[in-house]
């Protein structure tokens, strides 16, 4: 395939641009790509935040989207005061609480940015870590207890309940000190 710019050299770079759902393909040679500049990695002045902002606006701004995607203008973080629209515009959270405030809108964003992932799988801070581990254990025990009740294994359920109480007390004390 020949380059679409110079029609002389062999096209070695192939791009697909998707703007508003419209797909355009480019096939150009390296020489013309260098001259045009915009196709080379890094030479693009488009920042990650502009890209993100486009992505975030995709939700709710497109006409004819289902009403479940509608974002009320009042949706805002109570800790820092940032509204969802501000967040969508600048592509950055204002504080840790924004993650809670915009919780319902975040999974699709994280999925797109992080290759389908929405949950942390890495390091846990040392100090906060011990209580997080216990909370996880607590969840597991509660599930087990429900299962025992369903199976009518009431003795085991009672044992599990005692274990849960113990951990809950420990967590409560940790918070008080």
């Amino acid at each position, binding site marked *: 395939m020949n380059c679409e710019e110079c029609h002389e050299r062999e096209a*070695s770079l192939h791009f697909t641009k998707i703007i508003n759902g419209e797909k355009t393909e480019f096939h150009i040679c390296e020489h013309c790509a260098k001259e045009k500049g915009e196709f080379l990695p*890094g030479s693009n002045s488009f920042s990650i935040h502009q890209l993100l902002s486009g992505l975030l606006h995709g939700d709710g701004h497109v006409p004819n989207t289902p009403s479940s995607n509608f974002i009320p203008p009042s949706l805002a973080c109570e*800790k820092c005061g940032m509204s969802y629209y501000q967040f969508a515009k*600048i592509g950055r959270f204002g504080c840790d609480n924004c*993650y809670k405030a915009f919780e319902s809108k975040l999974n699709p*964003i994280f999925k797109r940015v*992080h290759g389908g992932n929405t949950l*942390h799988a*890495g390091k846990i801070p040392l100090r906060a870590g011990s209580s997080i581990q216990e*909370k996880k254990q607590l969840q597991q025990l509660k599930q087990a207890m429900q299962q025992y009740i369903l199976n009518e294994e009431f003795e085991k359920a009672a044992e599990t309940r005692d274990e849960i109480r113990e951990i809950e007390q420990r967590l409560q004390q940790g918070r008080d000190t």
Partner: protein
Amino acid sequence: MSLERFISDAISPWMKREGPESDIVLSSRVRLARNLQQFVFPIAADKESAHEVISSISSFIKEENQVPEAEKLEMLMMEELKPIEKRVLVEKHLISPNLAEQAKYGAVLMNDDESVSIMLNEEDHIRIQCLAPGFQLEEVLHKANVIDDFIEKNVDYAFDEQRGYLTSCPTNVGTGLRASVMMHLPALVLTKKMSRIIPAINQLGLAVRGIYGEGTEAQGNIFQISNQMTLGKSEEDIMEDLAGVVMQVIQQEHAARKQLQDGLKLQLEDKLYRSLGTLENSRIIQSKEAAKCLSDVRLGIDLEILPGISKTILNELMILTQPGFLQQYAGEVLTPDERDIRRATLIRERIKLENR
């Protein structure tokens, strides 16, 4: 100041050591993004809260005086630095352009050999950065983790069980880890393989950029490869994936170098000697041409075509011929035309220092 003295002051001490795979990998870097739970992120912070972030972190770092893996840290406030001084820190990769230009009450903590820098009030409250020469990703991650644990003993991080470390930008949430390697890939560029390798690397969820990060051109055939995803993978997995790709690119570059030497030895020698000639003789040189010639000379050193020149010349001169350093060496603000003259002079003098 003599040129030798200027160079020895200008180059970060960690850069003078030689690391593994250093014929291709110039340096390895890890950055961890962290925020304090107590305060809103820098983008939403007012004066008072930004100040408090700095004082709460600098207080215990000063008190302890001995940060593991970093020893003594010196703190620089952005508002107290001259524009040229900030530019020099950016050119040494010790601070980001964002911290230099935009941060409200930005600051940086650095250690003596400049292998550790902790930026405060950049996009996030804390950005721990560790650098090492050559291919040493595991070592820099270990170092950053030790410093991270040390800081965490003294403050409460913004952390969520589901989302991990909470960051201002959604692209950093989770591990807050950005790992990158700086690679010199002249043979892959010369053999036109790079344009095919870049999209392949991108498909694996890694980014390929120029020497000064986001939005910069690949000057002097130097490429930075880094992870994009921070959520849903452990730190170790992120590093393993990156290291695996880097190893492959190293092999490809070796193969391309061999291909050039076997097939086009004379043409290659001609090109490399011409570039050396340009650097030895020009009186006016733009940064782009300088970078290209320096890359050729470095390739000539690695392939033992150009003997008697030290390996560090590319790393050194790529940094020293940046606008900030040229102006610092000149001791005055220079126009672009004046910089091109200074750059040519500096390069000629630097090459004369070699014992050939």
